[in-house]
């Protein structure tokens, strides 16, 4: 039976008086450079979905000159099926706070923001209180533990746009601008928030960084395999007997074990059709192909991604057209409307799927394929580029089975 490995997950961490801040103390002791080196050596990759190495991001940001530097914690958890950041914000907010402090200290920022998804009322309430108490306890806004490091932290409540999970859109939103991605380069590390060097890290990434620096869990950095280090929070949902939040060590568990052991298998007497491994912007993995270790590279090899860690099990009882329509509707509504391929492409895909009729089973797969390619190759940001991953993978894998008329997606 596959086991969880608990580092990020655990007892509630809400009482600041009893929290020791061991990681940041450790960092203050060893200094900025060694802190960054530790994170770099740990092989930690961003947990928001894109998987950029956190240590390298910090190192680059530390080297850039700027009038001011910012750290932004991206807590705009919007990927459908994902709820790990909410867990961390509500149950382990001190860990999140410590992660933000670590990043700020490492890159030399004295101002930080946490941008929390607007719908997360409870998270916002809890984290606001944490910030307030931290100020009172001189953890924020004061020289921390008599060091020369002092951090101001502001909480921003998102206004409900999925695109603001994209770091440049999130930055626009903090600045009070329309939530839309910026053209890169310049990357936020060079010119981000208020045109200053800015590090944007996901909530879970920051908590992982806190684990890396935590003297009590030195083995954390040794977990996993090269390219996939540490642990990963999984948000199991869909047709599972035991949905919920789990923490696993990379490469020590297979996707099949995740579904059948941790998730307790498929509800009722249904058969699994496929797994959406990392939120709805990732390509599906067929039920018969689950027997591989959970790691970044294993998913990449299969043309998919572990994304945000939202593992959604989908049984055969669902209508595939319904599922595709659901996902398509989401992207159509959530594209920011700036770039033409994403805005118009997702609108047209939705129109095509809506026109599907059970009687003739005709669906213009060639057109979907052309539009899908156009969006993926030419969209302005990650939202657009990955918006058709689910739909095209369903057509690729099940087009024949569904007996779609017209040319099958190739």
């Amino acid at each position, binding site marked *: 039976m596959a086991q969880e490995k608990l580092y990020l997950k655990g007892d509630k961490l809400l009482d600041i008086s009893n929290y020791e801040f061991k990681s940041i103390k450790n960092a203050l002791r060893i200094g900025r450079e060694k802190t960054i080196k530790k994170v770099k050596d740990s092989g930690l990759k961003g947990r928001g979905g894109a998987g950029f190495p956190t240590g390298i991001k910090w190192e680059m940001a530390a080297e850039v000159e700027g009038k001011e530097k910012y750290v932004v914690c991206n807590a705009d958890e919007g990927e459908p099926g994902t709820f790990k950041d909410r867990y961390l914000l509500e149950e382990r907010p001190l860990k999140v706070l410590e992660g933000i402090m670590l990043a700020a200290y490492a890159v030399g920022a004295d101002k930080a923001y946490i941008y929390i998804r607007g719908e997360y009322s409870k998270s916002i309430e809890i984290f606001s209180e944490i910030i307030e108490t931290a100020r009172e306890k001189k953890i924020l806004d004061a020289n921390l533990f008599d060091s020369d490091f002092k951090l101001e932290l502001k909480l921003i409540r998102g206004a409900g*746009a999925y*695109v603001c999970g994209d770091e440049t859109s999130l930055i626009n939103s903090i600045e009070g601008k*329309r*939530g839309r991605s910026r*053209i890169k*380069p310049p990357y936020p590390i060079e010119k981000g928030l208020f045109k200053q060097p800015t590090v944007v890290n996901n909530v879970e990434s920051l908590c992982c960084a806190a684990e890396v620096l935590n003297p009590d869990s030195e083995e954390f950095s040794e977990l996993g395999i090269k390219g996939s280090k540490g642990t990963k929070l999984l948000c199991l949902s869909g047709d599972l007997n035991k949905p919920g939040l789990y923490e696993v060590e990379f490469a020590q568990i297979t996707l099949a074990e995740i579904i059948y052991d941790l998730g307790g298998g498929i509800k009722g007497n249904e058969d699994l059709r496929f797994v959406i491994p990392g939120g709805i912007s990732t390509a599906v993995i067929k039920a018969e192909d689950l027997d591989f270790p959970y790691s970044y590279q294993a998913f990449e090899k299969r043309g998919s991604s572990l994304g945000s860690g939202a593992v959604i099990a989908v049984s055969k009882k669902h209508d595939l057209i319904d599922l595709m329509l659901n996902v398509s509707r989401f992207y*159509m*509504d*959530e*594209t*920011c*409307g*700036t*770039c*033409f*391929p994403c*805005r*118009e*492409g*997702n*609108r*047209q895909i939705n129109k095509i799927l809506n026109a599907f009729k059970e009687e003739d089973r005709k669906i*213009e797969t060639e*057109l979907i394929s*052309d*539009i899908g*390619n*156009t969006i*993926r*190759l*030419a*969209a*302005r940001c990650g939202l657009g*580029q990955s918006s058709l991953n689910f739909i095209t993978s369903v057509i690729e894998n099940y087009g024949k089975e569904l007996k779609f008329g017209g040319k099958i997606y190739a």
Partner: protein
Amino acid sequence: MLRAEIDGLNIELEEKISILDAAKKANINIPTLCYEDGLSIYGGCRLCVVEVEGEDLLKPACATEIEEGMKIKTHSKKVRDLRKNLFELIIATHNIDCQLNCLTCSRASNCELKDIAEDIGLSKMRLDPIKRGDSVDNSSYAVIREPEKCISCNRCIRKCEEVQGIGIFTTANRGPETVVTTFKDRGMGNVECTNCGQCILSCPTGALHELYQKESVLDILNDETKHVVVQTAPAVRVAISEPFSNQAGDISTGQLVTALKRLGFDAVFDTNFAADLTIMEEGTELIDRINNDGKLPLFTSCSPGWIKFIEHFYPEYLDNLSSAKSPQQMFGAVAKSYYAKEAGIDSDKIVVVSIMPCTAKKFEAKREEMAGDVDYVLTTRELASIIKSAGIDFLNLEESEYDELLGVSSGAADIFGTTGGVMEAALRTATELITGEELGKIEFEAVRGLEGIKKAEVEIGGLKLRAAVANGLGNARKVMEMIKDGEEFDFIEFMACPGGCMGGGGQPISSDKNVLEKRQQAIYKIDKSKKMRKSHENPYIKKLYDNYLEKPGSEIAHKLLHTKYKARKI
């Protein structure tokens, strides 16, 4: 030195530039839609995407800087196929259908989208047009918006914000509901729009165009009971041939007059005449303000876009504006009084039509302070369209002269059509009137050219006149801020449009990058070719004062030729 490869060609560059600019240098055309020279990079349409070796995703050429060693393919199969697919998506949102079709579009003869379709070799359209059901915004006296045609390329937004410094447009909503609109969807007539029409010049879809008065003018020309006179602004004669010849910078004053006569106007006059008159009134006002400690600096008041701008944004400076009406309005007032009397026509029967390079003139004609001076305003584009529809072979027309009385003008009036021209015309007259001596060199080079803001100190007799010239409202704002910061001037010329009237929002939409230079050179050439180059030398202006207006600034001159302004809200 930076080396890269584009479509197999080795290129060397002195500095980092965009792939788009680098390709241009190598004589490679990459299609663009949301890109426009002089505006910030938007990166929305993605038509300019290219393949960069080693990268899976395509890169927008407008927004990607070329790097050392980059190998770029601008027209590979991958790129070409993608552009076609993408263009299908774009066209579907442009809503071409039976009601909203190409034949009635304001851009029928110079459609950017059609050009792009040709450039990318579009061969099929698999998608139905999307009907959003947006209603037409006809809240403005000057500019109409048909949102159904809008593809949200953002060019109008950027033009208004970045060049004109105003920003009446914004993007609203998200997803498929994303639209370009005005604040709270109030409509262009109910926001701080100056009616300059620069957005029309930027719109690739025909979603923006002037409020048409073509049909009304054709109707009135058929009305036997009316005496219809027409005036033509200085900048029209150097642009009206463009829709016929597709080339910029030709002077076709004589053909313009012939065409108007053929269309049936009862008298063809010239706004230039009124420009000379403006110099007499405004020049007198300037001298008076200088001599009698009046409010300085004096601001010119010819440009109605500028007038609405200052009324909205700098109402505390309204007293600095010359009280002189613009030439268009002076002409109307004179036509319906002096001309009516001289020609023995009942002024009620006289209809005044203006041909203007300007959309704001349509608004100006409707201002309550001057209502009735001018009845209809057509843009240069509208006139070209009427000429075409009347079957007139414009380019081959014989030349005719303007009708006398209100049709003779000096070279000083001609240069009103360009930035710096009103200033130069005023300086010519003011210098001679103050010093009593004839000018040696007649050109004031310091106020010539296309620079956004020009400053000059001019010696007139013993007086040092501190002059400034601003064109484009973004520059107007800069000059206003200089004044607020304490910089001192005596006389400032403001024109709302980049380049002045010749770059007006009612001018033909040109694909020639140097169109403004060419039109400006043509204007200077007309001035130079004239024997009479100073407003106060115009014998018909002298006659007007002798027979009717007495002298510049007289009571009757004030009644007919001067106006008031009002503060407007933001």
